[in-house]
């Protein structure tokens, strides 16, 4: 295994961080403290964490509306993330972005984006910058199975392949775009089958297995850094919760059967990773328990931080609009 104990534990820590963070968000939402939409990443943690474990701080990522897992996986600060979701001044975007727009440029998080597929060209452009300026970073973009049908993906993949850009297209195939099965929206069996249309490798990976995702991403990152161009990875995963908090109209069982959900939940990425670590002797039960406990404390702290952070002032309203004001 390419990963050592410390890395595997850090991956587990980040997966737990995402899981508990999302659980906290759901709780906060149900209390009415959070009004806007928020899209839980629960069930998909291994994708973001496996992918980001293959990246450096200087590498860039961009994401989408299902937006809490990616930045946390990249090493984002849960305090500032939670504060942002509550619209507080201590948040990543000073409360201006909210759940769908977390960003931390200082560690390469170029931002989550609410318009489906709209960050795919952005990430491609980041890779273009790396190439043109000969900076040694790669760029990775998370997008869904639904997003893969947008023209923006086609255009980006074609450009990236033409120009051998150091970008990884990471499709999180969780089976659905809101209520629409990917089988009814993608005209081939797999999104990764489309890679051949661009002349880049297409890799299908078990998105519930962080180690497998890490491995696939590492190879893509190696290619990218070596100037060999982009890779399309499709990680098969599953969303455990409803599409979005606040979209009560869509109960999960109406467009996907309870059996399907139950079946999918048997392959929970957290226990899978935990067991892999223990089985291969990288960590003990106690060490895993300790991580979980630590992260619980951390997330409690994040909620407290967020709650204590003040709302932005009316006087802040016009700030951050322009580099040189109009």
């Amino acid at each position, binding site marked *: 295994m390419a990963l050592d104990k410390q890395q595997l534990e850090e991956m587990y820590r980040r997966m737990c961080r995402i899981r508990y963070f999302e659980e906290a968000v759901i709780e906060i939402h149900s209390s009415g403290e959070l009004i806007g939409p928020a899209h839980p990443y629960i069930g998909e943690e291994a994708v973001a964490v496996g992918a980001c474990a293959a990246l450096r701080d200087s590498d860039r990522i961009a994401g989408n509306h299902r937006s809490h897992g990616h930045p946390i996986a990249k090493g984002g600060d849960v305090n500032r993330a939670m504060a942002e979701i509550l*619209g507080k001044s201590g948040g990543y975007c000073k409360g201006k972005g909210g759940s769908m727009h977390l960003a931390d440029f200082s560690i390469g998080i170029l931002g989550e984006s609410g318009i489906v597929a709209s960050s795919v060209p952005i990430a491609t452009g980041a890779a273009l910058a790396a190439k043109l300026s000969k900076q040694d970073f790669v760029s990775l973009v998370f997008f869904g199975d639904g997003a893969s*049908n*947008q023209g923006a993906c086609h255009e980006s993949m074609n450009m990236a392949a033409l120009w051998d850009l150091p970008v990884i297209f990471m499709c999180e195939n969780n089976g659905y*775009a809101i*209520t*629409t099965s990917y089988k009814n*929206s993608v005209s081939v069996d797999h999104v990764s089958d489309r890679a051949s249309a661009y002349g880049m490798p297409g890799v299908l990976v078990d998105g519930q297995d962080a180690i497998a995702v890490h491995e696939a991403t590492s190879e893509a990152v190696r290619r990218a850094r070596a100037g060999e161009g982009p890779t399309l990875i499709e990680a098969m995963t599953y969303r455990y919760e409803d599409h979005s908090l606040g979209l009560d109209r869509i109960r999960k069982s109406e467009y996907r059967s309870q059996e399907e959900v139950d079946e999918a939940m048997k392959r929970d990425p957290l226990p899978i990773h935990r067991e892999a670590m223990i089985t291969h002797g990288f960590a003990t039960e106690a060490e895993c328990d300790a991580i979980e406990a630590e992260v619980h404390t951390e997330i409690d702290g994040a909620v407290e931080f967020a709650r204590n952070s003040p709302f932005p002032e009316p006087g802040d309203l016009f700030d951050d609009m322009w580099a040189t004001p109009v």
Partner: protein
Amino acid sequence: MPTKTYIQAIAEATIEEMERDQTVFTMGEDLRQSVYGATAGLVDRFGEDRVLDTPLSENGFFGAALGASLCGMRPIVETVTSFLWVGMDQLVSQGSKMRYMFGGQAELPVTFRVRMFYARGAAAHHSDRNYPVFMNTPGIKIICPSNAYDAKGLMKTAVRDNDVCLLFEDGIAISSRTEVPDNDELPDGELLVPFGVARTVQTGSDVTIVGIAGGVQHAIDAAKVLAAEGISVEVIDPRTLVPLDKESILKSVAKTGRLVIVDPAHKMCSAASEIAAIVAQEGFWDLQAPVQVVASEQINVPYSPALEPLIYPTPEKVIAAVRVVLD
């Protein structure tokens, strides 16, 4: 008369038009599960062929709707203001231009139902109020119902119209209720509201307030407060922006001499700007005071509940504007 919500009115109009005309069908994302609430039960009633769930491809399926309309179909497309940007090329280059460009050969009976989310913490990517953009691109009819009655009547008119119609469903009005007659209460057996005919919501003599979409309710609320002070407000709802019933606005200004316009869009090049410009040209001699525009601040929509409400028009801002014109 029964009261109905705006969204119920839209749903009723959809069902009635689909029943009336076999060429009417709906397409969009997640319609069968009625994600945005207006298409519940449609698939059971009309079958999957007439309730198409599309892939996430706004430019593609907007264009497909336009293409289908050229061949005898009458699509109703559901989408959201912010996703119009994605499908902009088909809307503008094809939707707004084909008819003229082809010397009148193209009939384009497509109705785009465009949910206009704002003021609910959806942040900059999901809070666009972009009808003014389409006012500058000739060839599209723009419908902005402020209430359930108009929503139903205008929607039915839109579906029967042979031009591309964008019907903006105001997100803050969407659950509001108004009286909407059942068909058997109506002399013609159905509710049709014509395009280009403003509604005078209330008559008054001191000042005219033109409200657009969700702005109408702010106008009404402001008028109530002002009435208590003895100020008589005339409230006008243009209902459609293209065509725009400028005569009704000019007539009202001729009577009151004062004009406030309430528009949830961003202020620059808004519908309010256009109306102000029209009155500055054609109603100038009637004006006894500066026009006042109450529109959204010229910045993106912030997420925080502490900031977002500050950018939109409110009854308080409308009242303040009325005080300026009466000063």
